[in-house]
């Protein structure tokens, strides 16, 4: 039987009079990618904040890596890592220094080595000793995710990891996320892009107005809707296809 990394039951949260989460339930299996899909303001970030111990829930129970987030936040923090909506990188430090800082705070044996390895696998070796303020958006995001991987946490939360990135950088992030799950890391990501959930997630939950209105694998979700009608349409390349073809970095699906 598969073990559950995250269990959320009846999660409720209000900001003053505004009820943001009205009883959210879902489970995430160990080593899988779970996408929380929803439009802006659906409450995705609130869910992530509660699961990462940044915010206290009003009702319901949440266990992450077997620990209750409300009563055992310290234990939860040992197992998780958060990549928030905005790249949480220190602009005045270099990429390498950012990684070493986090490695030291996690009390790893060899911070320099950890930094070197991550710089290499995220293609940042060349830029390693430049200040982050000179990095492009995509490089910042890669460093941001690399920072979250320091110390190999079991569960990684990615809050809208590709918002604001160009198509190339987005595909790079997708590759990284897929690689994480292959390595056994549990990934919970939020997104407002349907395509992203479709590309990455083993399971998808749709959060709408504070509740999960549908959830399951992509094929399960498809079954919930009327069968597709077969139509013959000339396939026009999307602007994205064209852009990526020209730039020449399209990854084979």
């Amino acid at each position, binding site marked *: 039987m598969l073990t559950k990394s995250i269990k959320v039951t009846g999660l409720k949260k209000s900001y003053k009079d505004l009820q943001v989460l009205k009883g959210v339930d879902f489970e995430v299996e160990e080593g899988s990618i779970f996408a929380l899909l929803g439009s802006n303001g659906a409450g995705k970030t609130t869910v992530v904040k509660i699961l990462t*111990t940044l915010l206290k829930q009003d009702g319901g129970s949440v266990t992450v890596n077997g620990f209750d987030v409300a009563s055992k936040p*310290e234990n939860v923090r040992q197992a998780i890592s958060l990549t*928030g909506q*905005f790249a949480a990188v220190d602009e*005045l430090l270099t990429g390498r*220094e950012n990684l070493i800082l986090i490695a030291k705070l996690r009390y790893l044996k060899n911070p320099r080595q950890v930094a070197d390895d991550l710089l290499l696998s995220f293609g940042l070796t060349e830029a390693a000793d430049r200040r982050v303020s000179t990095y492009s958006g995509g490089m910042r995001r890669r460093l941001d995710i690399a920072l979250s991987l320091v110390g190999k946490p079991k569960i990684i939360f990615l809050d809208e990891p590709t918002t604001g990135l160009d198509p190339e950088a987005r595909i790079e992030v997708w590759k990284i996320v897929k690689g994480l799950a292959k390595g056994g890391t549990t990934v919970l990501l939020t997104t407002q892009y349907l395509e992203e959930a479709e590309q990455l997630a083993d399971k998808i939950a749709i959060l709408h107005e504070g509740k999960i209105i549908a959830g399951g694998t992509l094929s399960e979700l498809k079954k919930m809707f009327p069968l597709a009608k077969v139509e013959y349409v000339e396939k026009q390349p999307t602007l994205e296809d064209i852009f990526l073809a020209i730039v020449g970095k399209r990854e084979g699906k």
Partner: protein
Amino acid sequence: MDGVKKHFFSDMGIMLGRSMRHISRSMDTIITVTITPIALMLLFVYVFGGAIQAGTDNYVNYLLPGILLIAIASGISYTAFRLFNDVQKGIFERFQTMPISRSAFLWGHVLTSLVSNAISLIIIILIALIMGFHSSAGILSWLAVVGILALFTLALTWLAAIAGLSAKTVDGASAFSYPLIFLPFISSAFVPTESMPSVVRVFAENQPVTSIVEAIRALLSDQPVGNDIWVALAWCVGILIVAYFFAMRAYKKRA
């Protein structure tokens, strides 16, 4: 707690290292902090000084304590700025979701504030020495001066932490220090309070800067400090406790 190790002091040390690196990479902040007090010192000593009857033969000696307080008041606005930046950029959230001591982050910023203000004050004192400042104070008096200045910096730094943690904009985070910078002007820092009209005088004589300035001035000129030092200490400790309480509240609200 369930085998979760705590490393408060080493966490704080790592945080201090991080923000000290920030300071060494943005030396312009130290320059900005020192340039206004130095300009004021030059202006008051060489332009207005001749017309001011401070009752001392050496006006730099009279002026220096107030100048140091102005430097601290402008120095701490950068602490608010750095804190605000960390909160805005999400670095704060990253630290909060890591298994590190809760308050190490804040204390790292507070220690950084103490160190960077000390650097600014040393630069200003060196310039004052060139301008003819001299002190007959012994080592104990100097230690007392350092103690008062450190306590004052600590008190204002916690005030800055409130602003940095609760501000909505960058301007809001640093604007709170402007009134603090002006406080020394309505005190005995530049001119004796006897020359002021009664209402202003009452304010000047009963606000914290005057007692702190008087205490430091007495210590540096090897005069008896009298009551001023106790009033000064009471102000500093009072501000420190109140500011610490509200800063922690703002911090918990964020966390």
